[in-house]
């Protein structure tokens, strides 16, 4: 016997800025106790706003125009704030989409979780700490005893996200709203988290509102799925129904666009291959399009193949070039060519201080002797579990962090010895897309200014006007409306911000780009569009990438060569396909296996498990 926990009725949430943005435009759904509702949808379709509306934590310019949000019978929209406060954190808790900026920079992460515990539970400080450590352990933060004393800036992106999760879980809420909770997590941790969520849901009857763009994750956890598109619900149904028989062209598109470990696409299909949307006076009209087999074929065949390291090197690292094993268009770099970027024995150690006066207590060896080469036109995929030092490596290459040791050579020049103009020149060619898109955008700059800025700095792109035109173009390329150029970073959804960062990095037409989890917050259709764009650019302009991601399918799609990192070191290095097909390390294998699966069989299996667990719980309740 279940009853309705949350019922959202015709919810409309608008932003009243310079123009009205109808972020959520009349959506309705219900959520039963113990149920998981997955919300998927286009980036910027109103998922986060919906969840924030439920929490009543909307920005100042947002207003719930109409509709009700009934939680256990009380309408949250009209609930006075003191009452709402009792519900927040205790009955409903939320994992925010951007863990980077959602943690208070001046408190240790442990203190922040402990606070959440102590706000709603009558426990002593030490008990709360005990619980926190346990939670940290559960969500897979290594060395939780130490980590509770870390400040947010000392944690990697994924670690911060896990802190957020721990915080949200700390009080056993009735309803957990998880907004893209695993974007920054590597697959092993993601699996672990999903496990926890499932367990909590089934053992405690917790309901989950799970927002994600990752259909694989949806498949792993959700009972029902809600598909959102431009502030509206376009499809709502049980999980297997959506996967088996999607009705709406958008849903169909989503299911088709997702890169899988086993796909052979050179380019990914995008939603526009499945539907057309035209803006008319009345609104947006959507027309379904059929995906033709020719088109499919085209996607499989067109586009660049892979570019591997010179043969001698391949040999050296134990991935001999075996004629025929690689697809036809896989090429090798000419042995005479010098690598564009060469990293030798890079080390970044962060000192750990404790207390006010105390000295350095020890070092976090974030990167500990990493060496690799990247050749012009290549894509190096960098994978590894969260906190293994990927971001730090990327930043050290650009000298945003001074490396402790090691050599980084770009175009044969030692990056560490560059100064002034030379450094500027280097930065024109070498760009990075940051893992934290919100943090890396100046809150007081319109995104037009943000995108134009690199052009202004590097003195390219012609006149101001031409630069803005180029900015508009870039916006279109990353799938965004050029009209948005006049907005400020806080007025965007997570995915939109990520795209802005990509657009900004592309603005200077760099030779080399470090993409740090750059598509993690994008829904598959946009992700596909962006990935295609990156590939196109590579083909057209011979761009070189270091592609950092935890999503192995994306890395596999993108990367030519791949490095697997663990605890600051590279444990495996070789052609991407080789590594997938034939992982040498246990660690790598674990990563590959943990990738979420969205085949129907798997979904059915999950649902079965689910039923069982629920029955068990009900029986225990009955027997009490």
């Amino acid at each position, binding site marked *: 016997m279940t009853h309705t926990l949350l019922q959202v009725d015709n919810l409309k949430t608008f932003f009243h800025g310079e123009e009205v943005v109808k972020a959520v435009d009349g959506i309705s759904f219900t959520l039963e106790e113990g149920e998981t509702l997955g919300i998927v949808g286009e980036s910027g379709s109103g998922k986060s706003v919906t969840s924030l509306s439920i929490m009543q934590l909307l920005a100042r310019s947002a207003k719930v125009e109409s509709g009700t949000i009934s939680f256990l019978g009380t309408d949250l929209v009209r609930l006075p704030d003191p009452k709402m406060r009792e519900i*927040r954190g205790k009955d409903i808790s939320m994992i925010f989409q951007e863990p980077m900026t959602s943690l208070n920079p001046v408190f240790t992460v442990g203190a922040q979780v402990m606070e959440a515990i102590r*706000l709603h539970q009558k426990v002593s400080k030490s008990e709360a700490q005990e619980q926190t450590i346990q939670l940290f352990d559960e969500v897979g933060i290594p060395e939780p005893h130490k980590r509770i004393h870390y400040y947010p800036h000392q944690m990697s992106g994924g670690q911060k996200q896990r802190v957020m999760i721990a915080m949200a879980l700390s009080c056993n809420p009735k309803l957990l709203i998880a907004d893209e909770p695993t974007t920054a997590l590597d697959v092993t941790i993601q699996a672990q988290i999903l496990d926890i969520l499932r367990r909590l849901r089934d053992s405690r009857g917790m309901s989950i509102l799970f927002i994600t763009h990752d259909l694989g994750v949806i498949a792993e956890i959700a009972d029902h799925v809600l598909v959102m598109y431009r502030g509206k619900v376009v499809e709502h149904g049980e999980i297997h129904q959506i996967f088996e028989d999607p009705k709406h062209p958008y849903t169909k598109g989503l299911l088709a666009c997702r890169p899988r470990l086993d796909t052979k696409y050179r380019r990914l299909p995008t939603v526009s291959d499945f539907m057309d949307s035209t803006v008319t006076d009345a609104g947006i009209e959507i027309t379904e399009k059929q995906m033709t087999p020719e088109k499919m074929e085209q996607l499989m065949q067109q586009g660049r193949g892979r570019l591997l390291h010179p043969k001698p090197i391949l040999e050296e690292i134990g991935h001999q070039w075996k004629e025929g094993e690689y697809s036809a268009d896989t090429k090798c770099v000419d042995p005479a060519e010098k690598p564009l970027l060469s990293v030798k024995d890079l080390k970044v150690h962060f000192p750990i201080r404790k207390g006010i006066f105390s000295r350095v207590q020890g070092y976090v060896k974030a990167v500990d002797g990493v060496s690799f080469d990247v050749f012009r036109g290549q894509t190096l995929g960098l994978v590894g579990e969260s906190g293994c030092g990927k971001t730090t490596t990327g930043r050290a290459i650009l000298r945003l962090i001074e490396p402790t040791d090691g050599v980084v050579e770009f175009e044969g020049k030692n990056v560490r010895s560059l100064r002034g103009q030379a450094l500027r020149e280097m930065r024109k060619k070498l760009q990075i897309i940051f893992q934290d898109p919100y943090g890396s955008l100046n809150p007081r700059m319109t995104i037009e200014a943000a995108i134009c800025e690199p052009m202004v700095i590097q003195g390219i792109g012609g006149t101001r006007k031409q630069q803005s035109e180029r900015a508009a173009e870039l916006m279109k390329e990353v799938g965004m409306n050029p009209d948005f150029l006049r907005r400020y970073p806080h007025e965007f959804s997570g995915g939109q911000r990520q795209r802005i960062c990509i657009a900004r990095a592309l603005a200077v037409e760099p030779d080399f780009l470090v993409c740090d989890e750059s598509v993690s917050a994008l829904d598959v259709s946009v992700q596909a569009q962006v990935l295609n764009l990156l590939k196109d650019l590579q083909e057209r302009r011979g761009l070189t990438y270091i592609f950092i991601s935890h999503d192995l399918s994306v890395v596999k799609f993108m990367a030519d060569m791949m490095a697997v990192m663990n605890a600051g070191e590279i444990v495996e290095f070789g052609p991407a396909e080789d590594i997938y097909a034939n992982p040498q390390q246990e660690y790598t294998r674990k990563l590959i296996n943990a990738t979420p699966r969205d085949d129907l069989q798997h979904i059915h299996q999950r649902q079965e498990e689910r039923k069982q667990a629920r029955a068990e719980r009900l029986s225990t309740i009955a027997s009490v």
Partner: protein
Amino acid sequence: MLTYICRRLMIGIFTLWAVTFIVYGLIRSMPGTPLTIQQDMVSMDNMMSEKQIEKLEKQYRLDKKWYIGYWYWLGDVLQGELGRGINDRRKVSVIISERLPKTLMLTGTSLLLTYLLCIPFGLWTTAQSGKFRERALSTFLYVLYALPTFVAAVYLNLVLAVRWDLLPLYGSSSEGFNEMSTLGQFQDILAHAALPIFCLTYGSLAYYTRFIKANMMETVQQDYIRTAKAKGASPARVLIIHAFRNSLIPLVTMVGLTLPTLLAGSVILETIYQWNGIGFLFFQSISGREYPVIMGLVLMFSAMTLLGQLLADVLYAIVDPRITYS
């Protein structure tokens, strides 16, 4: 950090040297010498003779170039000797230390009171920002800010001390203070200090309140404030624990900057309330060109200023873990 502090203290000595050197140069370049005034103090009927003036000039080292005089002064200081007042012939250290407690009592209480009031005011106005009552309080504070101290002091004296006879008119203690009981002494001090402390405090409230509000408004926009709210923390908790902690950096700067005012006193209030403090001493010493006293005071102010700056710098690293000094 400890080494940082030690290093700063060492450097501070150098800074002190530079400051005193500059100030010594400045005061020696101000027109007039201690003799200018002394010559005037001699009665109408007499004048100091040339010989006497020469002697005095020698004594005060006025016959030497200022930078040479400075080294003499520095030599004395290094021997722990700050020199002697010119009017008040006692040692500078004695003159200053006699007045210091009084000033500290006023300024210390006032500074404490200012911060104790403006922090809640600042937080409250942040919470109520834009509402009528916030506007009303802010405007009221601006009125206070615009009300000159000497006006308030005189009117308060007129009403509270003369008309109603509730509080003493001036002075820092009553006659027979030493014979009073401890409680009586406390009450007496309180009664005497009430008005000057009030006058010293009210004007700055608007400034600090607005300062805190401005910084808080910036902080409460941040995402982590949303996180705190999502935890179910009360608005007060969100404001005080989460937001306030993050706007401490400017406040700490402010504290560092205001620390030296502890020693500065206020010329106007000290004159009106006949409160023999440092402010009046400083003013008097400047007009009298009492070089040794000025230098002693400057040395003291500077040391305090440097300490304030050091304190602020150290506190930065404490209130914001992202800031480190290596």
